[in-house]
């Protein structure tokens, strides 16, 4: 019944709508028709309730800690500026234990118990893939900060968006030419054995082969693994570049054992910073990383004259020029990813502001998001300019390559946004609400 009425309303043509408004002649009717958004603002000062699915425990805890700090900083900023047209944002945080099953339950809690207007925040791709179907069923806008290719691949639904962090497919595709031209033509890959790692395996191999390079071996490691030396003998002797990406609590062990295995010799290293997120690159045992290359979503170490709003953003989230907490230099942030939370919250402010007053806010939010294209570098979006694809619900942006140089990561290459493009694989706007 409910579904039918929604269908009917969304089927209203512009002409018919205008006519009916003329007939009714009232602003009340105006606000009840979806699509006519942004007209009736601020008629409520109820808080905007935003469910925040956070990895407080489990293998994603380090990300969770920093995602939460960044989120709190962004919400404080938005609310101090008057919230969303007078409505403050209220964060309802729930731990998902970095577990897909728990993730789906948390989404359900947001929708049914906490009466949230939207949900956001998740990083780990298996949690997103586990939770998004439930968000779709409950018709809850679900904005993820995950990097996985799952949104743009079309396996999710119209209610799931990734508006402020790029996906693995576009990242690795932009990295492949640099690795091929500067580091070596024969690559061995080491990646975690779940959705996120499989995106690396599939799309980097594809892009690297297109450039003319060869993938010698692909070594998958379970994400909860704690010992790594036993995987390394599989690295072929003629490997020129070792491509590594690892996640979970044991990343420091992973990189240390990599260093012990090669002992100063070995191939060139190209890693995704995920292998060292929340880990000090100057930890004992990591000296061998000097001269190796990393992908970063946003450079952990402050770069001279690169990102105009970086310093202001660091101040706001409490991170120093080395990417560590201002209150504890040993508490290194997940700087390359957490900007996604800051930016997504500002994105939410914009789309909610435009959807405000609609009778079906959730649907109007998605429609407002789908109409976004350019996202301009600003304090709201400190990572850089971006281009949002409303059809695939995925954003595209610059990628950074940094090199370990005397104990810090210095930027050596910035890709263009165009480097990250690939043909659309889905058009979510064709799906019904």
């Amino acid at each position, binding site marked *: 019944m409910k579904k039918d009425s929604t269908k009917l309303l969304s089927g209203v043509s512009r002409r018919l709508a205008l006519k009916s408004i003329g007939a009714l002649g009232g602003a009340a009717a105006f606000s009840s028709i979806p699509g006519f958004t942004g007209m009736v603002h601020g008629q409520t000062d109820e808080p905007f309730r935003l469910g925040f699915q956070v990895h*407080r*425990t*489990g293998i994603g*805890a*380090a990300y*969770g*800690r920093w995602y939460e700090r960044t989120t709190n900083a962004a919400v404080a900023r938005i609310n101090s500026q008057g919230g969303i047209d007078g409505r403050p944002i209220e964060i309802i945080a729930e731990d998902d234990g970095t577990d897909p099953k728990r993730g789906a339950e948390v989404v359900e809690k947001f929708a049914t118990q906490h009466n949230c207007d939207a949900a956001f925040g998740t990083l780990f791709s298996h949690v997103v893939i586990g939770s998004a179907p439930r968000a779709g069923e409950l018709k809850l806008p679900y904005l993820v900060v995950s990097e996985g290719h799952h949104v743009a691949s079309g396996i999710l639904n119209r209610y799931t968006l990734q508006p402020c962090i790029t996906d693995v497919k576009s990242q690795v595709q932009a990295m492949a030419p640099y690795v091929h031209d500067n580091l070596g033509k024969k690559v061995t890959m080491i990646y975690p054995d779940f959705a996120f790692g499989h995106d690396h395996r599939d799309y980097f191999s594809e892009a690297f082969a297109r450039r003319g390079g060869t993938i010698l071996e692909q070594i998958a490691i*379970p994400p909860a*693994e*704690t*010992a790594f*030396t*036993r*995987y*390394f*003998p599989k*690295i072929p*002797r003629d490997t020129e570049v070792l491509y590594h990406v690892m996640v979970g*609590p*044991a990343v*420091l*062990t992973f990189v240390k054992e990599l260093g*012990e*295995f*090669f*002992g100063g*010799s*070995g191939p060139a290293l190209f890693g995704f910073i995920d292998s060292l997120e*929340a880990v000090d690159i100057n*930890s*004992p*045992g990591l000296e061998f990383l000097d001269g190796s290359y990393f992908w970063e979503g946003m450079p952990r170490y402050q770069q001279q004259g690169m990102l105009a709003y970086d310093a202001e953003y660091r101040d706001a989230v409490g991170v120093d020029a080395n990417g560590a907490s201002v209150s504890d230099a040993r508490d290194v942030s997940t700087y390359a990813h957490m900007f996604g939370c800051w930016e997504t919250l500002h994105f939410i402010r914009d789309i909610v502001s435009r959807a405000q007053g609609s009778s079906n806010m959730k649907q109007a939010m998605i429609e407002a998001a789908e109409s976004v294209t350019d996202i301009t570098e600003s304090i709201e979006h400190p990572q850089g300019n971006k281009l949002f694809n409303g059809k695939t619900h995925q954003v595209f942006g610059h990628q950074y390559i940094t090199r370990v140089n005397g104990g810090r990561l210095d930027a050596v290459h910035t890709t263009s946004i165009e480097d990250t493009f690939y043909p659309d694989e889905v058009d979510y706007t064709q799906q019904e609400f």
Partner: protein
Amino acid sequence: MEFGPHFLLATLEGALTAAVLALTAVGLSVVFGIMRVVNVAHGEFFMLGAVIAWFVSTTVGIHPAVGFLLALVVAPVMVGFLAIVADQLVLRRLDYDPERTIVATIGLLYCIQQVTLMTFGPDARPVIPPFNQRIALPWFELGEQGFQVTWPWGFGVTTYKLAVIMFAVIILVGLWRFLARSKFGLIMRATQLDREMALAFGIPIERVYAIVFGLGAGLAALGAVLIVPIRQAHYLMGGEPLLLSFIVVIIGGLGSIPGTIMAAILIGLSDGIISVFFSPTLAKIIATLLVAFVLVYRPQGLFGRRLP
């Protein structure tokens, strides 16, 4: 990597696993053998050992080696003491009933794990090893120019890993001598053989049980302190040693210490070798399959004796 160095590397990795596993599993085996208690919280005592090692080594900020050596003593003692408290508060009150103690130790598992999560936090934290040099290992080949020494890529071991293996051997030999030669060892064996008769001879069974439970937990903690500079301390790290210890104890024969040590070497080495040549998942599959076969065809374990 060529087969020779590859195999030797796998064996070294396996020996490291076996060394730590032997310590942990012997702890579980002693507790079962003497108390007939299946301690499901054993893995959490292991985890606590690692977490306390982190705490001690970071609090004592003189030199990593001093902090670590202190942790090597403090962590097993503290964990052992905690186990004795748990024994007095919980297990003794259940009369060491085999079924009820299983449920009680499951409860203990969650209590320890969640308290650690609430205090230590969800992050993995590193402990700096007291020393750690990489030794590149040579390989000998009979090539065209005669006998040659080569230095294969990736073929090496660290001094700390070798030290862990040696230290575990020393502790196990010491434990064996303690059980075989000391008076307390005699009392423990007497309690294991016949509880009623030991009681009749005036052995304070409950005190023996408390000390044995403490000793078992302390051994797990010791294994963890040794491995933590390689693997980091994390609140979820107790699961794998628990599973492997059960596998080892079942294969070796519940309560048989020589059997446990033999099985730890067998499982540790095969885990290392199968992991390196095939996959770590396959190593776990084979180990658990072996448990199934042992339970079907030789339920008392490879070295265990059938209970009269």
